[in-house]
């Protein structure tokens, strides 16, 4: 037996230890070759009578991250070839058989007649945890960094190698569904409490304990293969089942708006599987897995949220000629909400921070905000007291620009006013070498014009953080006309250190994210003016896949800000640049009613000290007589919300603001929560086909106005049958 990914050794007691340690990889992943070698190992264990049992362990810091998602596009190609050659049903059969290989292998291991033990160190996720679940005994390392979980749902998949069936036979149904839905990772203690592992031990003792278990009581039979096995929650059709299932179906809809087929597949697989013997249950799970693997949503989510995001995280847009930039200490100017957030994430990731504001009190105030954030983390058990002390020690507050000396990067997050920003730029350059990269955190002011106040515009760059900084994982890096490669490399290295995802965009009004978001908000205003009930605007936006409705979002960012932007736009670009319906709505809200949003407790919603916010009844002023909400085309409303953002995203590409569709997709999901199941604003277009998108936009433009008119680029691409992504990635869209 020749193995590349594993070593296989037998001790004097006849216990084999299979050590998973893939060459040239820092992390074990499940590949075609891992699957075939595991198959060999199981055969070996079965056939060698001297082998009593087998311990599976990892030779790396982590057990394994699970299946290699890159593999999936292979399946896509194979499917397409088979479909053309043999027809659709035959292709489906082939795809089904291939997609359940891992499940079949694990079941073979589970029923091979000899005990298998998994010893879990570090992370053990997805298909790797499913391997552990198929083992007869699981020992997990007590190390803090050890985690088990089934995170497939986060990329539009679900556990398809027995995960749904074994979890639902280990945990009460409600807990099992929650564990599968959330894709959360559990530490050893929680895993033990939930009976997902049998034993917790120090890493170095795990193998010995595994051997002891095999010798002393090792039974090669899973609980569900025993005669008297009962599901933890009993039968589906029972009083207990009636408490679980109707609510589970409803909560699925509440959480997903029925937009995520993988989450629904979990419900199906568990509901159907629990009424069947394990083998039949695994078969049903495989049927759903094959279907979901071929879904448009899974393909789009894997591409944007896994592949593209990883590529961007690893510096896809970083100028290769520039070596790694050493970043130890950064300066943050402006200790307000944003500045404090930037200081926090920087210190959290080991950077020293000089937090500067116009006076010491303001600077200290910013540090106090950091203290609150980290303290909340500590009280939730996500950080230790030592982490907290370390972070606070790394942040030095000051009003003295001289203290910036020694900083490798300076980021300003002061008030969005040209004069204020210019003043900061000047004062920084008085004390620092002009070679130190200066980054401006702005969401509205063009970087090129800000850079004009700098002595070295090639070292001037925009970094647009999203609020709240500690939660939002996107950073928009904005290139001014003169921004140089070193500045870009520095900014990207910084973003990487603080573990956020960068997209690189060229300078324009609103950059990328805000252009799309403002369109979304404006569409809400226009609908309101049309007489659509406000609740419907909010609910349908969420049903379309957005995290919040446009009116809520507007309340959060402030209505008076929107009103100011509108007036500025009007001043700069003329009367026609603003939408009259939006102008009317904002004028009424801000000028007439003084409703600025959450900040003054009244916007589109009323905000009370206790209880939930509720829509302001005064919005009824926009109601139209004889307006029948039953006649509204809900699916068209959803399209309006997504289209108006996607068409803007396409414009940013047409204008060269965004240079890579991956950045538009990842940026739209991480930056403003664009319907993740679509794969992002550009994948949304690709997903329906550019031709169809153009037709849709033209139809909406006729009905609702030229703001939906697609850019020429899209018409050309449609005419040439082009796509933003290579064709091979979309053959799955069945």
């Amino acid at each position, binding site marked *: 037996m020749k193995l590349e990914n594993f070593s296989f050794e037998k001790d004097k007691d006849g216990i084999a230890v299979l050590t998973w340690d893939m060459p040239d990889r820092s992390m074990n992943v499940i590949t075609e070759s891992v699957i075939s070698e595991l198959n060999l190992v199981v055969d070996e264990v079965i056939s060698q009578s001297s082998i009593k049992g087998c311990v599976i362990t990892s030779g790396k810091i982590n057990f394994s991250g699970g299946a290699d998602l890159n593999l999936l596009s292979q399946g896509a190609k194979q499917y397409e070839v088979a479909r053309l050659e043999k027809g659709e049903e035959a292709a489906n059969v082939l795809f089904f058989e291939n997609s359940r290989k891992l499940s079949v292998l694990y079941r073979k291991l589970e029923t091979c007649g000899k005990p298998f033990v998994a010893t879990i160190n570090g992370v053990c996720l997805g298909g790797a945890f499913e391997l552990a679940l198929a083992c007869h005994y699981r020992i997990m390392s007590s190390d803090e960094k050890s985690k088990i979980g089934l995170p497939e749902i986060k990329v539009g998949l679900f556990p398809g190698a027995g995960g749904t069936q074994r979890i639902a036979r280990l945990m009460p149904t409600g807990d099992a569904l929650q564990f599968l839905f959330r894709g959360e990772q559990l530490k050893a203690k929680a895993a033990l409490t939930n009976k997902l592992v049998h034993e917790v031990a120090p890493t170095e003792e795990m193998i010995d304990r595994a051997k002891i278990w095999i010798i002393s009581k090792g039974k090669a039979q899973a609980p569900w293969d025993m005669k008297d096995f009962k599901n933890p929650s009993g039968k589906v059709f029972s009083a207990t089942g*009636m408490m679980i299932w*109707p609510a589970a*179906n*409803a909560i699925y*809809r509440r959480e997903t708006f029925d937009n995520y087929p993988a989450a629904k597949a979990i419900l199906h697989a568990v509901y159907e599987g629990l009424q069947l013997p394990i083998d039949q249950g695994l078969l049903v799970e495989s049927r759903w897995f094959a279907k979901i693997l071929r879904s448009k949503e899974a393909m789009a989510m894997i591409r944007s949220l896994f592949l593209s995001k990883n590529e961007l995280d690893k510096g896809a847009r970083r100028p290769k000629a520039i070596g790694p930039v050493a970043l130890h200490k950064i300066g943050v100017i402006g200790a307000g909400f944003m500045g404090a957030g930037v200081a926090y994430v920087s210190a959290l990731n080991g950077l020293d921070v000089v937090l500067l504001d116009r006076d010491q009190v303001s600077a200290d105030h910013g540090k106090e905000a950091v203290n609150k954030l980290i303290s909340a983390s500590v009280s939730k058990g996500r950080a230790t007291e030592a982490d907290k002390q370390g972070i606070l020690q790394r942040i030095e507050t000051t009003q003295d620009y001289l203290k910036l000396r020694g900083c490798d990067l300076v980021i300003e997050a002061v008030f969005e006013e040209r004069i204020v920003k210019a003043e900061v730029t000047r004062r920084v350059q008085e004390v620092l070498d002009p070679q130190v990269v200066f980054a401006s955190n702005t969401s509205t002011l063009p970087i090129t014009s800000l850079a004009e106040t700098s002595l070295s515009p090639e070292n001037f760059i925009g970094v647009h953080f999203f609020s709240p900084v500690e939660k939002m994982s996107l950073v928009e890096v904005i290139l001014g006309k003169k921004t140089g490669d070193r500045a870009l490399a520095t900014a990207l290295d910084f973003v990487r250190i603080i573990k956020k995802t960068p997209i690189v965009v060229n300078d324009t009004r609103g950059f990328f994210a805000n252009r799309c978001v403002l369109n979304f908000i404006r569409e809400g205003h226009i609908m309101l003016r049309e007489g659509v009930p406000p*609740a419907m605007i909010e*609910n349908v936006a969420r049903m379309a896949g957005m995290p919040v409705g446009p009116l809520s979002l507007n309340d959060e960012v402030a209505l008076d800000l929107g009103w100011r932007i509108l007036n500025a736009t009007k001043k700069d670009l003329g009367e026609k640049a603003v939408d009259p319906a939006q102008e009317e709505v904002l004028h009424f809200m801000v000028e007439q009613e003084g409703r600025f949003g959450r900040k003054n407790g009244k916007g589109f919603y009323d905000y009370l000290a206790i209880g939930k916010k509720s829509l302001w009844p005064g919005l009824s002023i926009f109601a139209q007589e004889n307006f029948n909400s039953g006649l509204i085309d809900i699916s068209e409303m959803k399209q309006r919300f997504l289209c108006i953002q996607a068409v803007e995203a396409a414009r940013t590409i047409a204008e060269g603001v965004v240079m890579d569709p991956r950045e538009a997709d990842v940026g739209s999901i991480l930056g403003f929560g664009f319907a993740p199941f679509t794969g992002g604003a550009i994948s949304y277009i690709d997903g329906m086909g550019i031709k169809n998108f153009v037709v849709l936009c033209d139809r909406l433009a006729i009905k609702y106005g030229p703001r939906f008119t697609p850019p020429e680029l899209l018409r050309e691409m449609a005419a040439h049958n082009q796509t933003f992504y290579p064709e091979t990635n979309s053959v799955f869209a069945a």
Partner: protein
Amino acid sequence: MPKAFIYDAVRTPRGRGKPDGALHEVSSLGLIVGVLKALKERCGLSGEELDDVVLGCVDPIGEAGGDIARAAVIAAGYSYRTPGVQINRFCASGLDAVNLAAAEIMSGQHELTIGGGVESMSRVGIGASGSAWPVDPAIAIPAYFMPQGVSADLIATKYGFSREDVDSYAVLSQRRAAEAWSQGKFLRSIVPVKDINNITLLDRDEHMRPETDMQALAALKPSFSFFAEQGGFDAVAIQAYPEIEKLNYVHHAGNSSGIVDGAAAVLIGSRQAGVKLSLSPRARIRAFANIGSEPAIMLTGPVDVTNKLLARAGVRLEDIDLFEVNEAFAAVVLRYLQAFQLDLEKVNVNGGAIALGHPLGATGAMLIGTALDELERRNKSIALVTLCIGAGMGTATLIERL
């Protein structure tokens, strides 16, 4: 097409559907046997004449399972040549049983049939027979399943009925039912339930609370808010009707139908069958209809099915003298009144299920008798009986005195 005539209609009083209810000791079979025996006696049947007995039952399981209609005819002393069939269209089962029994006459295949229904909610339990609808993701999700009470609250929210509106209607139902009893209006149809020693167990509807007033109802907490919020059904309601910001929880035990035990039967036959038995017909089944309605809001089917029925039968709304709209929840009736702009003086004039109770499989057949008795008393002609139905359906029947 032969006409289907109603020769008689009987029902048990409705017993409170709890272990301390007067009919709890009586089996489902016992309940229906009582009314079948009474019908036999009142109409002078030998027991050989019947072509079919169709009975509604919503939870046909356990003692009520396995075609209770066949068991009932034998136990009631009818000839073994009388067949029986049990049907289930949830809350309209009793009315659908009458309609099917009538259809057997109208089609010319049968001469004499019984349509009726039975439900011992205290003994079998609501939902005891199970269902894919709320449980199986393949239907629960696309159908936007929510418990009926949440759907009723959704109707109230969508169509603008306040807590005061629904409570006022409940008080009216109680008052009307109490008045009807005090004037003996139900006596013609009521068959007291007796024990084996001929001792009366119940001769009057037991669920009523005539003393109910607005103040008493105001003290009751909404029944469905907790489940709606914890179980995620509020979100389901809003996704089905996104124009709604939040549900207004107005329903509670006092303005929803009562859980009760009971049975009913209606004797239906051709003109010829009546002549043979020397019975004169009391009315005829003029037309009936079934329909599916939007399943999420679930309980608005009476409006849809009434439109369908009137169009097919060529009857105008104003031709109808009386309406029986099952009081599953107050909002169901209020929505019906609102949709047709009806005069409350024509609708549920002797109260309804809020006061009297709703023995699921039997109610529809009971309402036929109630409507017929009242038509006769008022010497009026046409009544319409309709019920809302789980999973979004409606059934309605037009009866007409000769």
